[in-house]
């Protein structure tokens, strides 16, 4: 086996290695130099689109059809997407392997599953008038540069909201790039534009000149951690500076007159400059290494390195990981390398193996750890095995060692090797795998329809498998050639008893494919009622949808269905649908109450709910501006219930309402005061108070106000008008239907004890004598009180009253006199 250091290259004091991932990547006929090549991070798919600005040889009409071709890194064609939308100005990937295509007119297509399914939105903000010039992408979004130098940022693909960034100055943009929001201070995306000699930094709020004088720059690139910026000038010089433009780290002169094709970062330590077939790796302190290729090289930057793609090979260029460096570096004497050597000796059955172990005994634990880690970073299966063997050997010597990392690494390596296999073509490095997370790896496999592998990996790593099944089933209903019953049976038998399976999604796929019956059948297996609703609606299974919505208890969902139905169905059939469903009716009623009383009227009419219908008119009558229209509305209400006998009471009430209104109108015009809007009692009250007793009397007899109440109203009105004489007249009446106590109480509280006292004797029939005494006292008439007390022979009270009056006063003496009779 070749020494792993064979393809190492020194750049400064660090080593870089170029790992050949795949060979014979693309067809030799494919003129890679004429293609735009973009790759997804984490060893993801590569998209090829012919660069229309370049000439290319004619290959017949068939080949000239425009398309976007999706390849795996190993050159396996995943999908060809035919393209007829016009010139592509931006082609890029999101970190979850969505292909983003932006056309000149600002249309954005987001292909979310590698299989040609897409969502589409438009950039707006002037993109249509000016046209998109170029786009730059980052993990979750992108920025588009328009021809008028405006920048539009899209920060997410679910519910995208294209946002205009601050306007940069006019002028040619030589090159530009962006810093992803995750790495900026402002937490929003920042764009670096090379205009004339300097660089402008543009974010949402403003555009700022960084005052550089070494431009213009043909290439700008930001390091994966967002901390550094590499600038390449027309004169062939490359600079590395911090992204806040405060410190310049290094300067490199490529001495090349030809402008490079691409400048990218290789990890965070080195910059890779690619010419047509030559690649330079520039490290700190001007150190450099060179690689040469046979054809045009495309760079695909990843987090910890760069993928180099030519027709023949797909290479991965990265800084040698520290642990690998420790194990393999030429001439190293690290404990890990000795451990590795020990395994070799062991295989050769040499006793040196033990010598080696004894040598590194004190640092054996670290040596094992290093070997395990180094195995992870190794792409070569032979060396992976060798390193793990070394670790395992070292482990066996140790008394105590926590093998978790070892076990995990073995698992991860199995997975990594499986996906690196050329038929899958996902060349993940260990670091990328950790960043990507196993879940996302599985998702990528699902998108490639590698269901079996995805399932195996999921089970192996104990991950949820529901997504895989659902995706598989959806695919099955799309392309399965079997008849519907078989497919349904097949799917149900496979997925039954599995947790988290969304049958709704599968059903939707079936429906979209035009297999309506299959969709219905599958939907029956969906346990979540709410989930079924949107699909049922699009399947025009309206009533079932409504039932399911009601079942879910989610009023929003019910209402949503109802709105949909209301728009779709004629009113009569809409009512028929909701009639049998009280919840639906209730929701319609409560919403229509405020907004749509016409609908309500129709509903009640159809339902023969006369009273409710009448009440709408009454409610409307309350809002009428003038009495006449109010009366009209009331008449309508009456009409509605007039032929229903059970509602005669209500009918009478409405009639009274109108008649009161008419009375009040009359009063308004006859008298100077306004009566409209008052209640009947208030009207009578006001009439009495204003001295129109006869009118009041007529009104109360017209409306048959009960006697008691009339008396009360009169009493209150007269008291409040302070018409004492009228009240005094009343006291001469023999009988009052409400008794005389109210008279006493009200008049007293109105501040006329003298008049109040007149009513005291009249109350005698109603109350205890004791109370009579109190009443007199309240009026301040102690003598009268005492008289009463004497009458009931209550000596104590008499004494109390006398004391209260004061012994020497006239009152006191009077009481004394009265009391004397009692004492005898």
């Amino acid at each position, binding site marked *: 086996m070749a020494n792993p250091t064979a393809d190492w290259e020194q750049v400064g004091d660090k080593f870089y290695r170029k790992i050949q991932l795949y060979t014979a990547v693309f067809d030799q006929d494919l003129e890679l130099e004429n293609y735009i090549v973009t790759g997804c991070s984490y060893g993801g798919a590569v998209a090829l689109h012919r660069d229309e600005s370049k000439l290319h040889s004619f290959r017949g009409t068939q080949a000239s059809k425009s398309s976007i071709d999706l390849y795996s890194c190993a050159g396996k064609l995943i999908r060809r997407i035919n393209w007829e939308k016009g010139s592509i100005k931006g082609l890029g990937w999101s970190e979850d392997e969505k292909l983003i295509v932006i056309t000149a007119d600002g249309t954005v297509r987001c292909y979310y599953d590698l299989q040609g399914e897409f969502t589409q939105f438009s950039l707006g903000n002037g993109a249509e008038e000016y046209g998109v010039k170029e786009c730059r992408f980052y993990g979750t979004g992108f920025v588009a540069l328009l021809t008028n130098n405006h920048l539009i940022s899209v920060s997410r693909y679910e519910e995208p909201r294209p946002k205009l960034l601050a306007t940069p100055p006019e002028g040619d943009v030589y090159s530009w790039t962006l810093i992803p929001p995750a790495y900026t201070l402002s937490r929003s995306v920042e764009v670096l534009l090379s205009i004339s000699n300097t660089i402008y930094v543009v974010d949402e709020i403003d555009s700022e000149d960084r005052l550089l004088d070494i431009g213009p720059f043909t290439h700008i690139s930001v390091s994966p951690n967002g901390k550094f910026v590499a600038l390449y000038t027309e004169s062939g010089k490359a600079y590395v500076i911090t992204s806040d433009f405060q410190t310049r780290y290094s300067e490199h002169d490529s001495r090349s007159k030809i402008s490079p094709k691409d400048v990218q970062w290789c990890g965070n330590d080195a910059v890779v400059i690619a010419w047509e077939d030559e690649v330079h790796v520039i490290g700190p302190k001007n150190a450099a290494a060179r690689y040469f290729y046979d054809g045009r090289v495309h760079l695909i930057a990843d987090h910890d390195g760069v993928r180099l793609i030519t027709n023949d090979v797909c290479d991965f260029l990265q800084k040698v990981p520290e642990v690998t460096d420790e194990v393999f570096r030429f001439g190293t004497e690290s404990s890990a390398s000795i451990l590795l050597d020990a395994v070799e000796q062991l295989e050769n059955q040499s006793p040196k193996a033990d010598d080696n172990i004894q040598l590194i005994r004190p640092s054996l634990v670290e040596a094992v750890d290093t070997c395990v880690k180094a195995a992870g970073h190794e792409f070569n299966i032979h060396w992976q095995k060798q390193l793990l063997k070394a670790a395992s050997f070292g482990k066996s010597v140790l008394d105590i060692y926590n093998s978790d990392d070892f076990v995990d690494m073995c698992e991860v390596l199995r997975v990594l090797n499986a996906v690196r296999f050329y038929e899958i073509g996902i060349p993940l490095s260990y670091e990328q795998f950790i960043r990507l997370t196993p879940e996302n790896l599985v998702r990528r496999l699902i998108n490639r329809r590698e269901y079996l592998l995805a399932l195996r990996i999921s089970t192996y790593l104990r991950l949820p498998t529901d997504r895989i099944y659902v995706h598989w089933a959806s695919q099955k209903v799309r392309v399965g050639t079997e008849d519907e019953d078989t497919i349904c049976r097949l799917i149900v038998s496979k997925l039954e008893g599995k*947790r988290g399976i969304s049958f709704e999604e599968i059903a939707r796929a079936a429906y979209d494919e035009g297999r309506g019956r299959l969709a219905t059948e599958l939907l029956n297996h969906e346990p979540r009622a709410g989930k079924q609703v949107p699909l049922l609606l699009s399947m025009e299974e309206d009533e079932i949808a409504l039932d399911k919505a009601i079942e879910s208890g989610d*009023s929003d969902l019910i209402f949503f269905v109802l709105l949909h139905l209301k728009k779709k169905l004629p009113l009569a059939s809409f009512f028929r649908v909701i009639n049998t469903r009280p919840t639906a009716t*209730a929701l319609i009623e409560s919403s229509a109450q405020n907004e749509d009383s016409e609908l309500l009227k129709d509903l009640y009419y159809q339902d023969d709910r006369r009273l409710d219908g009448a009440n709408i008119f009454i409610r409307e009558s309350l809002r009428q501006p003038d009495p006449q229209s*109010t009366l009209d509305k009331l008449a309508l209400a009456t009409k509605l219930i007039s032929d229903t006998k059970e509602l005669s009471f209500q009918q009478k009430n409405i009639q009274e309402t109108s008649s009161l209104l008419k009375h009040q109108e009359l009063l308004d015009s006859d008298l100077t005061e306004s009566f409209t809007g008052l*209640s009947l009692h208030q009207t009578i009250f006001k009439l009495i108070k204003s001295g129109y007793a006869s009118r009041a009397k007529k009104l109360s007899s017209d409306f048959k106000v009960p006697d008691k109440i009339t008396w009360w109203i009169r009493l209150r009105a007269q008291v409040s008008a302070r018409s004492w004489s009228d009240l005094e007249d009343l006291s001469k009446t023999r009988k009052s239907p*409400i008794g005389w106590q109210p008279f006493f109480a009200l008049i007293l509280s109105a501040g006329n004890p003298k008049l109040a006292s007149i009513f005291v004797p009249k109350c005698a029939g109603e109350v205890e004598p004791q109370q009579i005494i109190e009443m007199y006292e309240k009026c301040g008439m102690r003598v009268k009180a005492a008289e009463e007390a004497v009458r009931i022979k209550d000596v104590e009270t008499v004494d109390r009253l006398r004391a209260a009056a004061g012994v020497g006063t006239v009152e006191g003496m009077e009481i004394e006199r009265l009391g004397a009779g009692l004492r005898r």
Partner: protein
Amino acid sequence: MAPCTGFDTDQIKDKARKDLLYLLEGVRGKKILVIERELGDSLRLFVKYSTLLEYGVTKTFFLENGDADVSQQNVVFIARGECAKHAQSIADHIKRMQRETQTGHEFSIFWVPRRTLVSEKILEDAGVLGDTSVAEFPLYFMPLEKDLLSLGLEDSFADLYLRKDPTPIFIMARALMLIQQKHGLFPRVTGKGDNGKKLADLLARMRQELTAGEDSTESTKLGLTPSNNMESLIVIDREVDFATPLLTQLTYEGLIDEVVGISNNRAMVDTSIVGAATQAPVGTSRGSVSSASTQEKKRQIELDSSDKLYPQLRDTNFAIVGPLLNKVARRLKDNYDQFSNRQTNQTVAEMRGFVDNYPSYQAEQKSLKVHTGLAEEIMKHTRTDQFTSLLEIQQNLAAGADPASQHDPIEELIAREAPLTEVLRVLCLESCISGGIKPRELATFKRNILQAYGYQHILTLDALEKLQLLLSRTSPMATMIPISSTVATTATKTNYTYLRKALRLIVDEVNEQDPNDIAYVYSGYAPLSIRLVQCILQKQYLTSITRGGGANSGAAGTGGASQGWRGFEEVIKHVRGQTFDEVQKGEDKAVKARALLTGSGEKKTVFVVFLGGITFTEIAALRFIAKKEEARKQIIICTTSIVSGPRIMDVAIEKGTLGKNTAPAV
């Protein structure tokens, strides 16, 4: 998941705050906040206004006012997603703002507690959805107190019983589901009432759906096994006991609510009663939000446990609030006297002790002043003839007196134009307690009311009938469940006559000073709703007072684990609505895992959910039970909102008047 012992409402508070601040942080730069009034008021329960300022909020406006200005580029709306009305008004706002200024505004909408299809459809139809970024602010429960969570759905009573809109049930289910996901399933769900049953069904369904939607990873599985530190969930539908809220509340807090009104732990009181706010305003003033005109005359009073005196006073019967306040006043005076009298021969340590406590004395003093003023004001109210007469009628009705005997006083109230709210309240009470009012008498009352308060109240009376609060005795809906339940009937109403005895709703020898039964909150009437809770939680006690007689058998013992309705099955048949009692089980393995993780807490939490609202008196009664059961249980009260008699009547009462709008307010 960290092992958590017991349930703490502070977690909910913290989460609400964090959620809001996180969302606000997401909107860069300075912003103005346009918020639905109801929500704006409750925001202060978990976040200070000053904190909002720190997060770049420069101004706050109420959505309803429609006067938000355009001073900042960022505009944030916060509104309830369930309500189409708000979506419309947000759309109007956005359109207006876009018209007024040329510069592009950034609009964000935070829907509470979730975004809804309908609201978004409205925005879409209005053509503004594309200009906004939409987020969810999952604010379900608002922590009013340590033991009290409210959804803050002020309309929930009207929604549930007048409009039959099940939204509050759904939101409650979601809120409870969140608690279950965090703390585990309620091992038992027991309750009464049709809506309660709906809630329980919804919970079961949601659990099922969650299991279905859930992936099989270990972490989430744990959330769906029965909890170890929660004992049960008790659901009471307001519908089963309409009578209780119709009675006048007689605890201090209840009376404050009836007389001045409490919203979100805050009452607006005339400054003439409690004095103007001195230097530092009580609690957090929300600056620009409160309109200036009312602020001059009214003062906001925070009524929560942060107050020095209020916690001692709130749940006591109003009769003893006066003496209590006196006692405090005397104690405070003593403290001062002690200090000033012994000034000459005090040691430095003593002096220091006093000075250290001085701020607390001062706070107490201040709170004393407020509450004395407030109590006096309420006293003024309770001393009126009208109040006494109403109370007498209510008490008589509750005690089962012949309803006909109460008709004269009610008629008198109408003739004297007592507030409509109160009149309707006693009539509804009669209808609820005695299974409707005799048709002829009901007709007379209705006529009188229409003539006295205006014919627009045709609608009011109709609404009350729809609420099934005011019914004729002939109406099939009004009939009470007969005592002998052998005959199948369609009668549905709670039979108070039977229950009065069976659950001992009337306790004559109630001791307000040192209460021995929950009946103290209504001075002799024990709220049925709470008696039902006792059926589950305090079986022995309840049995002893209903069968054994003496209420003073004291120290209420309870059966260890909750056993649902056991022992009271017969009784609760006479209460309106469905009865349910479900045990939620989980996989054995998972149950054990949870037991291992959380340990079996000594004290278990019981959640009491009131659908359709709870009154302050009922809260007081529940707290009374909680106090008795302190050693074993913790009671958390959840409700859709706080209700009271006036609020219930307000739902029904028609606000408009006939003819010109010149009529004085009734």
